[in-house]
């Protein structure tokens, strides 16, 4: 079990690039067992649905619990660590001088305090936009190149997702402590709050349409109420996440992008000001809870 096995549905997923730490999936489960478990749970799920809805919901809860045993997100974390530490870009330098807010090169605990105001950029940045900044300022990429390919797909590994997986994993267990003292941080929070309630598109949807009330579902999918501290904490601290249904690690930027797609809005641009403001609103609402990602979700 020292070798990193490929995650389900992604046989060519990357091994660590640098001589990074060796990582193992938690628990003793081989990925094949995870797959079998998923199939078995899926079968149980079908049977449950045939009887009653409540038992279907119970089965989904069991399926989710079973997933926690082994999280392929660790493959992204390991690949991200390699990418972080090895020289890259036209300038052939690593990210090890990238300042995520706690000083040059400090990764530990940095994500639990993001988004935040960065004096060098004179604006509020989330992790992804800060990585873009470091790719431009340290590694010498153009901004357009630094923002390319933020979300992976089949046969397309996105370095951004791996970098985010690594950095966020270094905040696991750290209490969320996003600042709101700087005027620009306060402004980002207020703008994010307004955007959360902005109704638009063909369907009149806002974020709040699905995430403003406790204990609601779309089909059988439970929806977090992001307007309460408890709801925001539970949701925000479990992104990024490995999505079993997609075989990909998904970042918070992706979460927002795909919510807006389903809201019937146009495409949210990666690392845009609106995405940062909304992240600020949700991250600050999650303050006080221990960060617990990369997680694993259906």
């Amino acid at each position, binding site marked *: 079990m020292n070798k990193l096995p490929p995650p389900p549905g992604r046989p060519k997923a990357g091994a660590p690039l640098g001589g990074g730490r060796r990582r193992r999936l938690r628990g003793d489960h081989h990925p094949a067992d995870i797959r079998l478990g998923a199939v078995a749970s899926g079968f149980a799920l079908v049977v449950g649905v045939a009887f009653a809805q409540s038992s279907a919901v119970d089965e989904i809860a069991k399926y989710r619990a079973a997933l926690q045993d082994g999280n392929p997100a660790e493959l992204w974390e390991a690949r991200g660590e390699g990418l972080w530490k090895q020289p890259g870009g036209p300038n052939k330098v690593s990210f090890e001088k990238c300042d995520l807010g706690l000083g040059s090169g400090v990764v530990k605990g940095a994500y639990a305090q993001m988004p935040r105001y960065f004096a060098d950029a004179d604006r509020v940045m989330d992790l992804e936009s800060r990585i873009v900044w470091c790719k431009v300022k340290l590694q010498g990429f153009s901004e357009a190149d630094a923002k390319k390919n933020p979300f992976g797909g089949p046969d397309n590994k996105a370095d951004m997702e791996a970098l985010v997986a690594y950095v966020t994993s270094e905040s696991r267990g750290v209490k969320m402590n996003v600042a709101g003292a700087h005027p620009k941080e306060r402004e980002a929070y207020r703008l994010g709050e*307004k955007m959360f309630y902005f109704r638009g598109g*063909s*369907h009149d949807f806002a974020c709040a349409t699905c995430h403003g009330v406790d204990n609601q579902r779309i*089909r059988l999918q439970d929806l977090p109420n992001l307007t309460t501290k408890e709801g925001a904490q539970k949701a925000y601290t479990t992104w990024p996440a490995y999505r079993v249904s997609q075989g990909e690690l998904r970042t918070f930027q992706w979460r927002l992008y795909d919510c807006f797609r389903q809201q019937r809005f146009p*495409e949210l641009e990666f690392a845009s000001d609106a995405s940062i403001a909304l992240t600020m609103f949700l991250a600050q609402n999650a303050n006080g809870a221990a960060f617990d990602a990369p997680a694993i979700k259906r």
Partner: protein
Amino acid sequence: MNKRIIGWTLVGGAAAVLIGCATAPTDAETSAKATQVLKASFKARGQAGMDRLDQDETQKTCSEFAGKPLPKDVAEKIEKVNLAAIKWPADGKLMGDWRNGEKIAQEGRGKQFSDDPKGPVGGNCYACHQLAPAEVSYGTIGPPLYQFGKVRGYNDDIRKYAYGKIWNAEAYSACSNMPRFGHSQILTEAQVKDLVALLMDPQSPVNQ
């Protein structure tokens, strides 16, 4: 001495209030800025053009009052405007075929930038409502509609209400979470009629 301290405290307090007034943006200013930043952060893709972010009066008002109690006069105005905008069927028939209605209620595709603009487009009713008992994968954002017609009565008033509600939910409940399926040209008149049949036909599985 004490008087002097109190005096300075008052001056300091007044200054702080003045600074506060000068720097804190009003709620309306924050809303305007949020809309502006939002529009600068999206790009048109597929069938989802940037006009999707242009709010009509209903969307704008409901965004403004979100999370706060909606004043009665504001709610009445929204309902009045939207009720007047309902296009009732020219042939006077409010019901189509519940079998098509069930398919439309199940269909979740339509209007997303990732969807084929040629269709299909559904109402995705099960995403939020319980309808036919055979479908146990239903959401709970909207009320359960099981036995909708059976409980309320199979009459013209209820048929008309069902048609109007699906066509434009804002006409009956201001700032409802439900999309305005006819008004916003999500579904066609024929599709709305099929959904009315799903709710109101005595033969529909919803009413068993």
